[in-house]
């Protein structure tokens, strides 16, 4: 189960598991954001390639309009996935302690 909360500043907070069964609702949330968007991933336990696809699509759309996603609170396992997929080169990512 994945929950996505939208903050008053337009930021997103992801919590739970971003697997293939959660793509449709997640896509809707990411389609609605604009500008530079902080995405709090501190509650995100798991992400699969389906979830990565949603993030990639959003990043391409936002950067095309001068914005971007900024991913914060990324746990170690998900950070490894970002490194193996090259996402650490195309996303701004911060770990739980704010380290990049």
């Amino acid at each position, binding site marked *: 189960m994945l929950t996505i909360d939208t903050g008053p500043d337009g930021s997103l907070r992801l919590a739970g598991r971003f697997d293939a069964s959660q793509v449709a609702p997640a896509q809707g949330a990411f389609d609605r954001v604009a500008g530079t968007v902080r995405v709090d991933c501190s509650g995100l336990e*798991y992400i699969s390639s389906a979830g990565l696809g949603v993030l990639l699509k959003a990043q391409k759309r936002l950067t095309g309009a001068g914005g971007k996603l900024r991913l914060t609170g990324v746990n170690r396992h998900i950070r490894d996935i970002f490194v193996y997929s090259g996402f650490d080169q195309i996303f701004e990512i911060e770990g739980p302690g704010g380290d990049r």
Partner: protein
Amino acid sequence: MKRGRAFARRLESLQAMFGFAATRGERLPAVEFAIEELFTNMLKYGHPGAAHVWIDIHETPESIEVTLIDRDVQPFDPTQAADAAVDLPLQQREPGGLGLHLTRRLVDSLQYEYLGASRESRIRFRVTRPQPPAASEP
């Protein structure tokens, strides 16, 4: 210790698969990732009329080995799929193609077997259990 179970061929089976793969009360992200990516590939490319996918799990103190079995399918060897182009700049990246690329990096081994007579695909992977940190020397 070995166990096996059939799962319906739909995305909604993922949560039950993850629960089935939990070992000693622990869920291993690499195991779940590999199961999801291999299973969703089976949904995309397998026979839509086939009833279920079977999962066998073999546990040892050091590792967990998972086999996904799909029947009435054409052969497709995930160990031979090309790596994704992960060095491309953002605007040239396309969604898709990362599942097998990442699976091969997260698991310790990945093997494929196709039984032509029964049109059965068997994909087996192994993940070593994380070891507890060593106690500090005095």
